């Protein structure tokens, strides 16, 4: 009896030592997940990274964001291709950029910056402009920005919004 128990114990202990977690299928699953995540991340990249203090409006009807010149309007500044062109105080133009000439208005500087960026871009005939504006930005500021853009020849606007809502 005692021998039987010992024999059984010996058997079960040897069984325990042989059982291994099947990690190979787990690794396969992880590989698939990783590939899928990397692929979807690569597809979603639009080289668009709005400032953290920017609150974008939310609408349901949208299209893709094109790869075009970007202008960002926040409470504190207007940025063209991530470079500050105009400083704002609660959406009102305040200080001029250090490089500006005294006679130049802030919106003339914006026109200059847009012209410069257009000259730098690969496709100089592209009339698309991506506007990333805070949802509280008043139309008064927006129309000044749009007028500046129109002067340079940016006629097709893409207003960046958060998909969803309604």
């Amino acid at each position: 009896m005692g021998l039987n128990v010992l024999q059984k114990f010996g058997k079960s202990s040897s069984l325990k030592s042989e059982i291994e977690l099947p990690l190979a299928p787990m690794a396969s699953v992880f590989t698939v997940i990783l590939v899928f995540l990397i692929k979807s991340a690569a597809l979603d990249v639009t080289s668009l990274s709005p400032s953290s203090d920017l609150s974008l409006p939310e609408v349901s009807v949208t299209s893709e964001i094109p790869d075009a010149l970007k202008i960002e309007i926040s409470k504190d500044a207007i940025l063209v291709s991530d470079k500050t062109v105009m400083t704002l105080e609660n959406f009102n133009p305040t200080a001029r950029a250090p490089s500006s000439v005294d006679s130049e208005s802030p919106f003339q500087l914006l026109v200059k910056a847009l012209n410069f960026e257009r000259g730098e871009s690969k496709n100089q005939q592209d009339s698309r402009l991506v506007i990333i504006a805070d949802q509280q930005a008043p139309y008064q500021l927006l129309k000044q920005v749009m007028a500046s853009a129109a002067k340079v020849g940016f006629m097709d606007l893409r207003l960046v919004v958060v998909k969803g809502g309604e």
Partner: protein
Amino acid sequence: MSLSSKLFKQSEGLDQDVPINIASIIDCFTVLITYILAAASFVSLGALEASIAGTHPMGAMASSAVVAPQPIALAHLDIQASNQFEMKTSIDGHAEKKPLTFEQIEGEFAAFKEKNPSLKAVTLSSADAIPYENLVKVVALIRKIGIPVVFSGRPDE
């Protein structure tokens, strides 16, 4: 037994004995997946299309592609300071004004477009204080019907 066959047998035995350490690979993958998920932005961005009726020669060409030079039907939406809306239409020079609520915009413009297929775009103007959020919502409503929206390119309008 020759030396070479001994070595072959030894190496064969080694091949069978050495297991691949998958546990560390899984650890690595778990960290990578966690990092990618944490870094991924779950806010999905999109864009709304609109145009500017401008003064630049190239812009004039671009805007003429959207707005016909002498359209038979014209439509304009004005967002007033009180957040009220006014629809201004013109068919062969016969102008009309109509106050609207936000809910009526889609229906009214859809009906106008149906009656006047020559309508190429809706021009949009607004009171200075109206926030961008409200503008975008109106643009989205009009785009939903399939009519392009044109903003005024003049700062004084």
